[in-house]
């Protein structure tokens, strides 16, 4: 039988507290034999457990009683109360677990100390002071590190000095090697840039909450026309736990999440044609908060890739920090009204941001017919029915085939259309049946009098009139609606020659 039995009970039956809450309870010490005791001390702290070495936080000490003789049969009760820490939160993963503990020890001189510990669960509560609510950079939590002592500083200085001396001694060999390595890297980057040009990638939210809509902006103007297998973003989360040290150390990795979202499908990037898109990716619901302790890490990253067949891909990776929504000022949740594609991302063309509701109201003000009625292929319908189709598409959900059905209903109808030109380019890789489009032009612009974007494939016979048009000018023709490009939120139309 132990010298004494220790029980720890919490005021919350499920032992669940939020950061900054008061954790209270009672310690009961049942004494089994007479002992001299130098005191009974309660510690509370967090600690990792699992496959990696233990990382732990500062031990906070509460003296329950000072030295007293304890007599067999005696039962001592000590109420306790302390303010729970704010971070890190309880996490139970695969290789890594983070738990908060209350530990009670009876200090018995010259003998084994009876002790006992119990966990409690810490949920998100108060926001840690390190968080200002900003999302533009990963926040480093202040760690309780002991300042390097003088001798350690001297040793560090000596090591750095030695390294510099060695570098100088071997510079004859090292510098050419570094130059060759640097040259290869430079050539590699240059080769990629020769296709994609300068790529601007913005990930405005590096601090992300679970289930949020996470924005990505990508823009570049290809220097050459090239095919792509797709433009993707991979969201990746991993636990990394290190056990042992030196040659005895082993790093254990466990993938928590790996999901690739297609931002742009396979197709062609045209030389000189700017690709500029904003996307939102649905971040997964998760409790795997970012952790960066010395031997236990939970990391999140996002890697955008322009996948070019038979050519080096352009990639860029950013470390993300996943924190509870409670720590964020402006959680951008999926339920914000934006619809999502099945692949989990929403495409928001820059011009469309903030204009959708306005465009919709304009359509309504025009008192448009609800359906396309005129099926007279000989004479084009006016602009209003076309805008009605656009309004219907805009209101339809992205899931399912509602939009395709609307476009299918409009297929075959001919509309008189006036396009405000954004750009005109040679049609590349036209996949339709009609050869007349293959050597024609592709017109990108907006339907005049609206914000509706359109991509129109024109006949070769229209080349002469189109080649002299520049941005901002208008061009009138007759065309049919063929499909809806949900990525760019634009109508795809085919020109119909005038009789």
């Amino acid at each position, binding site marked *: 039988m132990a010298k004494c039995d220790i029980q720890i009970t919490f005021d919350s039956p499920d032992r669940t507290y939020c950061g900054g809450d008061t954790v209270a309870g009672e310690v009961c010490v049942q004494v089994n034999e007479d002992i001299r005791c130098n005191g009974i001390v309660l510690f509370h702290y967090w600690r990792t*457990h699992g496959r990696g*070495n233990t990382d732990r936080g500062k031990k906070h000490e509460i003296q329950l009683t000072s030295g007293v003789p304890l007599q067999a049969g005696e039962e001592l009760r000590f109420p306790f109360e302390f303010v729970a820490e704010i971070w890190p939160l309880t996490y139970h993963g695969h290789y890594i*677990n983070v738990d908060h503990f209350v530990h009670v020890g009876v200090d018995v001189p010259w003998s084994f100390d009876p002790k006992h510990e119990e966990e409690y669960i810490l*949920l998100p509560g108060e926001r840690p002071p390190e968080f200002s609510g900003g999302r533009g950079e990963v926040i480093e939590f202040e760690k309780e590190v002991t300042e390097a002592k003088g001798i350690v500083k001297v040793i560090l200085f000596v090591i750095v000095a030695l390294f510099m001396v060695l570098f100088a001694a071997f510079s004859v060999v090292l510098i050419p090697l570094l130059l060759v390595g640097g040259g290869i890297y430079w050539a590699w980057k240059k080769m990629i840039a020769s296709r994609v040009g300068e790529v601007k990638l913005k990930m405005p939210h590096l601090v992300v909450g679970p289930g949020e809509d996470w924005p990505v902006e990508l823009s570049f103007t290809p220097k050459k026309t090239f095919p792509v297998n797709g433009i993707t973003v991979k969201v990746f989360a991993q636990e990394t736990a290190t*056990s042992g040290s030196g040659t*005895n150390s082993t790093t254990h990795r466990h993938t928590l*999440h790996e*999901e690739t979202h297609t931002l742009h499908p396979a197709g062609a990037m045209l030389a000189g044609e700017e690709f500029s898109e904003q996307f939102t990716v649905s971040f997964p619901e998760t409790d795997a908060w970012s952790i960066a302790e010395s031997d236990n890490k939970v990391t999140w990253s996002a890697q955008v890739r322009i996948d070019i067949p038979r050519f080096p891909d352009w990639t860029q990776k950013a470390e993300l920090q996943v924190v509870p929504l409670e720590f964020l000022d402006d959680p951008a949740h999926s339920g914000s009204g934006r619809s999502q594609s099945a692949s989990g991302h929403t495409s928001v063309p820059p011009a469309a941001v903030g204009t959708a509701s306005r465009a919709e109201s304009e359509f309504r003000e025009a008192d448009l017919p609800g359906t396309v009625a005129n099926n007279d292929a000989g004479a084009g319908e006016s602009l209003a029915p076309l805008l009605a189709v656009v309004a219907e598409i805009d209101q339809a959900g992205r899931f399912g085939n509602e939009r395709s059905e609307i476009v299918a209903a409009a297929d075959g109808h001919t509309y008189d259309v006036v396009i405000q030109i954004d750009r005109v380019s040679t049609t590349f890789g036209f996949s339709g049946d009609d050869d007349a489009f293959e050597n024609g032009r592709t017109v990108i612009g907006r339907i005049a009098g609206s914000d509706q974007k359109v991509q129109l494939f024109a006949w070769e016979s229209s080349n002469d009139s189109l080649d002299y048009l520049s941005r901002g000018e208008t061009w009138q023709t007759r065309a049919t609606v063929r499909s809806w490009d949900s990525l760019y939120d634009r109508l795809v139309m085919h020109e119909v020659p005038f009789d």
Partner: protein
Amino acid sequence: MSVPQLTYSLPYAHLNLRRNPFGEFSADEQAALALVDIDPIIARMNEPGYAVQFVGEKGYGKTTHLLAIRSRLSGAGYVHIPEGERAPVPLGCPLLIDEAQRLTQWQQFQVFRSNTPLVLGTHRDFQQKLRRAGRVVETIEVEQRTDTERLHQLLNARIEWVRRCDGQVPSITITTADSLRQQYAANIRGILHHLYTAFQNLSEVTEL
């Protein structure tokens, strides 16, 4: 692959445990749980010039032997020499040096020629050097000291160590211990990793 939705409950409570028994333990816990036969070695620790070296691959139990000896001898001096670093040899009797192959030549000369009883954990066999220094040397290949019965006890002792409260806890059968012994030989670290994963996937108290 989707992120598992973690539920907030006490860790491993469904197994009546506090944590995964095959995770990484602290040096003190390793020493407390060591199932090693060190009594004959402890008995010789008063002989001046005695040296014992535990030789074997990593993960086979050299450190466990040293930690168990240290926990039995209060005056012992212990050092683990990290990779790529030099570490001062501590004072103490006996002297326990883990990763002794990383001692500098000068340290070897000093330590081996002293009369202090010596316990080495090493990948390299120092028998000849120690004999030349006048030592009485015993070499123990740790691989030979792990049989199925001992392994069975060791694994179940780990489970018992992390028991949450009275009642049943999972257990490892002698058959499982034997099959692990055949699969991993004396690589205890490999066996622990295997069982760590098995316990992560365990949904209820059962025999393995």
